[in-house]
């Protein structure tokens, strides 16, 4: 949990300047003038125009296959510009978007899953975004996949937690609590970029604004560990949590991710550790802070590893230092493993907490230089 911060608004601004306003309209009639024809089958995704002027773009989609399909426009790094789901066999749909000049992909996804059948297209005109190093595009695409996977895998774990809460089973709910948060904690900066989801699912009591209703994981954490009872209201909150998490899973593919935001996201994950986990504030009732700690480090490490080839070329010394410090922090954390998880943080003494804090500083300081090493 964290207050909205600068990098989020920067990401939002970047999304705007990237010229992305997607909307999809249902249409069963013939396509209008100037529309790009997209003919989807179970094995093909034919696009009538591979190059078109930037600006208002209309796709006239026809599903000639036997499976329900969906159609996406992707910007580099697999950012979703717009999408349209549930286009049934034999039906047509119209998708519109405002796109800036640059390279895009149109994807048809028969059966509504997977990478899709893709076509490279180009929006011509002035003001195209600078082309990125293809390794960075790949890093962003890989990271986007990671973020989506983390979100997807969180749902069943969160459902298990929610079910236990709704069944009034305190022990089962306690056991399911920390695992339900791992995917979120690994990718939190992306989730936070949507602004509205984080305050619903991950806010702590002291982070509430006046008039804001307390929902999400930490309210239930307090019920389980502090109040030691599950009320009817708590059971409803478990459903609310699931609803909000599903919203997150839906939105996550649209997040504006670029190499800089990946690198800064990694640093922000360490900031989370430094201000919330090392102090034991994040999980003040359950004391499962070390589970979050590990997840934050894993998420940061994922970003770093994907950016590493470029970073290592631009700043080999930094890459070496980051390799060393990631190894060191993981080694430190390994000392607190217990069963499938970690020891309760209230058993970690002042001296050990200081050592963990020193380890976080040792990693976070060079990590703060990653963004510059990637873009230079």
């Amino acid at each position, binding site marked *: 949990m964290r207050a909205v911060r600068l990098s989020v608004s920067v990401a939002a601004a970047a999304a705007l300047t990237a010229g992305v306003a997607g909307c999809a309209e249902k249409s069963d009639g013939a396509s209008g003038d100037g529309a790009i024809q997209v003919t989807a089958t179970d094995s093909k995704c034919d696009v009538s125009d591979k190059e078109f002027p930037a600006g208002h773009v209309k796709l006239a989609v026809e599903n000639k296959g036997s499976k329900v399909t969906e159609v996406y426009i992707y910007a580099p790094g697999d950012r979703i510009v717009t999408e349209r789901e549930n286009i049934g066999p034999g039906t047509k749909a119209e998708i519109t978007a405002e796109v800036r000049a640059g390279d895009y992909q149109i994807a048809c996804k028969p059966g509504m899953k997977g990478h899709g059948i893709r076509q490279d297209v180009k929006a011509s005109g002035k003001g195209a975004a600078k082309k990125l190093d293809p390794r960075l595009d790949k890093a962003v695409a890989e990271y986007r996949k990671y973020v989506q996977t983390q979100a997807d895998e969180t749902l069943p774990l969160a459902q298990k937690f929610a079910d236990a809460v709704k069944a009034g089973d305190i022990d089962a709910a306690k056991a399911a609590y920390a695992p339900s948060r791992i995917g979120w904690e690994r990718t939190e900066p992306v989730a936070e970029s949507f602004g509205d989801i984080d305050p619903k699912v991950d806010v702590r009591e002291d982070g509430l604004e006046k008039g804001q209703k307390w929902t999400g994981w930490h309210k239930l954490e307090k019920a389980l560990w502090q109040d030691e009872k599950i009320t009817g209201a708590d059971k409803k909150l478990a459903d609310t949590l699931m609803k909000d998490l599903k919203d997150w899973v839906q939105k996550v593919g649209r997040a504006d991710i670029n190499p800089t935001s990946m690198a800064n996201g990694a640093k922000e994950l360490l900031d989370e550790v430094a201000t919330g986990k090392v102090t034991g504030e994040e999980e003040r009732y359950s004391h499962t802070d070390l589970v979050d700690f590990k997840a934050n480090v894993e998420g940061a490490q994922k970003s770093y590893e994907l950016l590493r080839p470029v970073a290592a070329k631009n700043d080999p010394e930094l890459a070496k230092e980051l390799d060393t*410090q990631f190894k060191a922090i993981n080694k430190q954390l390994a000392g607190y493993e217990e069963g499938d998880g970690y020891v309760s943080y209230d058993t970690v003494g002042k001296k050990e907490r200081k050592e963990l804090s020193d380890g976080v500083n*040792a990693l*976070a*300081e*060079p990590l703060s230089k990653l*963004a510059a090493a990637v873009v*230079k």
Partner: protein
Amino acid sequence: MADDQLDENTERPATSRRAVLGWGGAGLALGAATAGGAAAAVASGGDSGTAPVADSGAAVAFHGAHQAGIATAVQDRLHFAAFDVTTEDRAELIAVLKKWTRAAERMTAGRSVGEGAVSELAEAPPDDTGEALGLKPSRLTLTIGFGPGLFEKGRFGLEDRRPEALIDLPAFPGDNLDKNRSGGDICVQACADDPQVAVHAIRNLARIAFGKMAVRWSQLGFGKTSSTTPDAQTPRNMMGFKDGTRNIAGTDKKALTKHVWVSGKDGPGWMAGGSYLVARRIRMHIETWDRTSLKEQEDIIGRDKGEGAPFGKSKERDEPNLKAMLPDAHVRLAHPDSNSGAQMLRRGYSFTDGTDGLGRLDAGLFFLAYQRDVRDGFVPVQQSLARKDTLNEYIQHVGSAIFAVPPGVRDTRDWWGRELFS
């Protein structure tokens, strides 16, 4: 800080341009007119320092035979930090010491660290944290010391280089030491006339060291309790008494040689021109002290509170008659004549770290004393004080550390600890 536009490769005089233009004249006039503050400052760092610096905003030379910050006229503010070395790699430790030295050169000259506080690269955090931008050098000195832990066997291969004088301090009666406020492998004493300049220096050194060293504890000090400038007014400590009347003067070359600087003959060779530092966090029971009658306060100290004159005398600088004082008076017990001539150069600071949760000020004296050999300096004096001093009813030693302070950095190629590690 004062001036970052100048060519970095040009060796510049330590005093920044703006400091000279803006303050030099006024500072001189002030120095002549009053006997207060830092007016009669002495540049140290050099050969025990003879060049007068009459400007609390000026720069003190970093390079010299001795480190600055010892004989240097005591500045108004302190930020002292003790570090644990967390790396096990000797080469990494040396790399940090070299980086520190370069950063210290820049900061003491009133310049910012590395590529400055507002670098060209918007994506990277700036090298310098920025809070000292536009501030004068403020006579910043940075003084490094090496603690006993650094010499432990199996750490950095320095076990044979530990000076005999770098003892583990014995336990003194009445000590109530908090280990989290004691010890440390390395210390840096930052003194400046502007608190923000001192804090900036420690903050930036700590940042450079992340991953190799971690701050173990640190202490802010706000009012010097001893001066090394006898012509200036003697400062008062938190008990309201003048402190350090008979301190070693920064200009008293003879006394410095005899009591402060380690000589080549003392050994080990790498310490020649260095000194030993004892740091003690001394908590004062302010509230009970304040309820003590004036007469009792003066009896306990052995001087009068207003003038600071020793018992039976009328002026502060009159030679004390120890026999006129009570046998357990502080000044009598601490006097060189009661301790086989032992003398230290004190440059401690008052501290107030808020309140202690019981509504009492967490205040006292952060005692810093430099000496040629602690076995002839702090140890015998404190043994005597700890046993007999009536003042002990009002004070308690809660933090303690000892450091071997190496000689000065000679030039822009030299670095802190070179003599120790080569």
